């Protein structure tokens, strides 16, 4: 093997080692910070078709945003309350979130 060929081989191996090392560090940070648990783009966590449709409906509802400037009138505040209550109704659909039953002995059959 010529000197140039050997140097090229070393460069190739070092590049692979550095890439593997940085990828490993990135994955470790991704896992240790807990971002992995908030990420739904992982395989097995991707939204199904129904969810995508629901999300599109929600986007239309989310258009409202209370302006941080302007006068405060009774009418404006009534509209604010109406929209806020609407948002809270969405939360109420998840009333039993993280309830104890799903991890109970009975549910797991033990």
């Amino acid at each position, binding site marked *: 093997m010529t000197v140039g060929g050997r140097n090229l081989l070393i460069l190739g191996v070092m590049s692979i080692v550095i890439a593997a090392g940085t990828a490993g560090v990135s994955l470790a940070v991704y896992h240790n910070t807990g971002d992995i648990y908030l990420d739904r783009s992982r395989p097995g966590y991707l939204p199904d078709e129904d969810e995508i449709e629901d999300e599109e409906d929600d986007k239309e509802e989310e258009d409202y945003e209370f302006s941080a400037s302007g006068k405060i009138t009774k009418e404006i505040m009534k509209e604010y309350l109406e929209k806020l209550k609407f948002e809270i109704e969405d939360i109420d659909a998840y009333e039993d979130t993280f309830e104890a039953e*799903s991890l109970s002995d009975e549910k797991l059959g033990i």
Partner: protein
Amino acid sequence: MKKVFVAIVVLVLSMASANVFAIDTKKQNLIISKCDQIKEDLVTLQHNDARTRVYLGRYYETILNKFIVPLNLRLVENNTSNAGLIENQSNFSTVRGKFVEDFISYQKGLEELVAMDCKNEPGQFYEKLVTVRAKRATANKNVLKLRELAGKQVELVTTLTEKIK
């Protein structure tokens, strides 16, 4: 007498080092026999919880950034800031941060539980399950607290609206 004392000490130390979690034999046998099914259920739960967290997180973010914060800014601009609403913003923001932190802790626990060998270590598996239950309960508390704070926002704004001429 001395031998009995030594035997008791050895027994206690060996139990402590083995980290044995007291569960009855019937439960142990059920965990061993249903190990695969339990893990499958836990993975399904993990996925469902991740989906719920995304939805709730999005709603909380909307309530905070599109309702609570802009209202307080507008009240300041109009020189009518409300101490109750400012306190509610602070509380909502704090609990929302805790909601994310505690969810991560719960999911980590659930992942560790799924990775455990429930066929060979049913006692330790059950011990971990109890820990994960506690973490899930904390996550549930945060959800209830955030709902309470959202309700409080409605109450405070209703009172404020009534005072406007």
